[in-house]
């Protein structure tokens, strides 16, 4: 997918399982929206093949559209339309819509049901956009940055709703640049950057499984020279050791009791006294940082 000579999405290959939540994660401008809009039939890929529910989003668009729900990034409603009026309108275009009152209740839209769209807050517009994507009882929903601009409470409600949809057999594909959102919700995470897929897997796989972990070691006095290398040798090949500053080291590897015993034995050998030893699971943030060399969020 290119615009002029800038390629937005390039050689991206990913598959989504039915009844799962898939998160497409990446920084702004990574090609998340382009990827979604190609699945929704808004954009024609310059090369490659896209199938949604076995259908071509462009050629079979009319057959596909009733089966998918789409939440666009912002806008998508008349400026003078009232929130519930808009939701009811979209519901009427479908054969078996959800009960709009239930949906507005679940998403807290009743507080602004009679408010014109242009006067809704960003979070309210987001919630209405989500409601419009769900109301037709789709098989797949594509939600673009569903919780951007939402307050923490609305974000939790949205996560609940998306989990419940998964439990009811709906496939959810979402884009996000919130790592926590991907970690909390997704069965599979695809990390893209500069239009390329750079990693895929469950949040656990991406953070190297259940045993994958970090140990942050802080000592009372500066380490002697060559400390990271000697610790790596002491721990074996399965670990990576990075010096964070003169008194702290980050160990990435299995945080089991053997490793801990070796770390404390190494401290004794080096004549350093641990001040703190913190165990942590490697977060998606760490993964992202390693893969792209930059932070996802400023």
């Amino acid at each position, binding site marked *: 997918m290119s615009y002029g000579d800038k390629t937005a999405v390039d050689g991206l290959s990913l598959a989504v399982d039915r009844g799962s939540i898939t998160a497409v994660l990446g920084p702004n401008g990574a090609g998340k929206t382009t990827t979604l809009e190609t699945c*929704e039939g*808004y954009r024609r890929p310059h090369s490659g093949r896209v199938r949604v529910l076995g259908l071509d989003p462009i050629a079979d668009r*009319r057959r596909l*559209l*009733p*089966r*998918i729900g*789409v939440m*666009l990034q*912002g*806008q*998508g*409603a*008349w*400026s*003078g*339309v009232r929130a519930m*009026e808009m939701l009811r*309108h*979209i519901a*009427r*275009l*479908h*054969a*078996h819509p*959800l009960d709009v009152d*239930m949906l507005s209740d679940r998403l807290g839209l009743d507080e602004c049901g009679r408010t014109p769209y242009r006067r809704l807050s960003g979070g309210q517009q987001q919630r209405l956009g989500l409601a*419009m994507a*769900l109301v*037709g*009882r*789709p*098989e797949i929903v594509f939600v673009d940055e569903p919780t951007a601009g939402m307050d923490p409470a609305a974000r939790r409600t949205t996560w609940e709703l998306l989990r*419940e*949809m998964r*439990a*009811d*057999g*709906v496939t959810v594909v979402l884009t996000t640049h919130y790592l926590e959102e991907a970690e909390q919700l997704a069965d599979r995470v695809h990390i893209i950057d500069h239009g390329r897929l750079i990693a895929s897997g469950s949040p656990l796989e991406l953070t190297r499984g259940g045993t994958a972990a970090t140990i942050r070691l802080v000592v009372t006095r500066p380490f002697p020279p060559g400390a990271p290398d000697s610790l790596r040798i002491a721990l074996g090949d399965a670990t990576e050791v990075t010096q964070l500053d003169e008194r702290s080291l980050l160990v990435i590897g299995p945080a089991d009791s053997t490793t801990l015993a070796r770390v404390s034995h190494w401290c004794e050998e080096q004549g350093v006294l641990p001040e703190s030893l913190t165990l942590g699971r490697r977060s998606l943030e760490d993964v992202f940082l390693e893969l792209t060399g930059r932070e996802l969020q400023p």
Partner: protein
Amino acid sequence: MTGTFTPMPGGAALHRQVLAQASMEARLMLRNGEQLLLAVVIPVIVLVGAVKGGQHLDLSPSVLDGRPLVDLFTPGVLALAIMSTSFTSLAIATGFERRYGVIKRLGASPLPRLGLLAGKVLALVLVELVQLFVIGGVGQLLGWTPEPGAVGFLLAVVLGTAAFAALGLLVAGTLRAEATLAAANLIYLLLLAGGAVVLPASAYGGFGSFAEWLPSGALGEAVRTAFLDGAVAWRDLGVLLGWAVLGSALTARTFTWE
């Protein structure tokens, strides 16, 4: 196992979708202050002003053959109302729908493009009905006695709406929303003043023979012929058909929904 969200996808029957779209658009149009001004308030002011002003000036155009001025101006103002709705209102509304992503959003709904177009046309007809009742009612209060020209009027409404809607979409499809707003209002004012819509083409002297070929002039003449003579103005309907075909062809080549 069925839960709240268990998929049960599908579009509503097409005619239901079109009806939903039409009633939504008509409601939005009648609720919007500027659109209402254009659809009802300005035509009524023009009608009352022309009739009262003409009476004070003792005007009695020869085309009227001694009949009251309101018989001339009510058909003209009805033509103006059709033009304002199907051209100006449609162009502005569509321009902003593109801007606000409404059309993109609806593009992801089960409503097909043709259904959206049908919904828009039906909404125009609904608004035109409201206009007919208001303007016709005010005309009656001023003493309007139309000739029975239902066939000629109906054909004028259909072809006039088609011609102006095609031109309105042409403007909305080629310009930005703000430019559409400006252009649609400007063209409306120019046609109101010089397009032989409220005043008959004969009132424009030599320019009148040109104005007859404008969609505004043709629509005005067609509605006047219907209600002044109870006849069908085939020539003017032909002109409107020509504009409808030309406008549709250009719109089909240039219009993109998003």
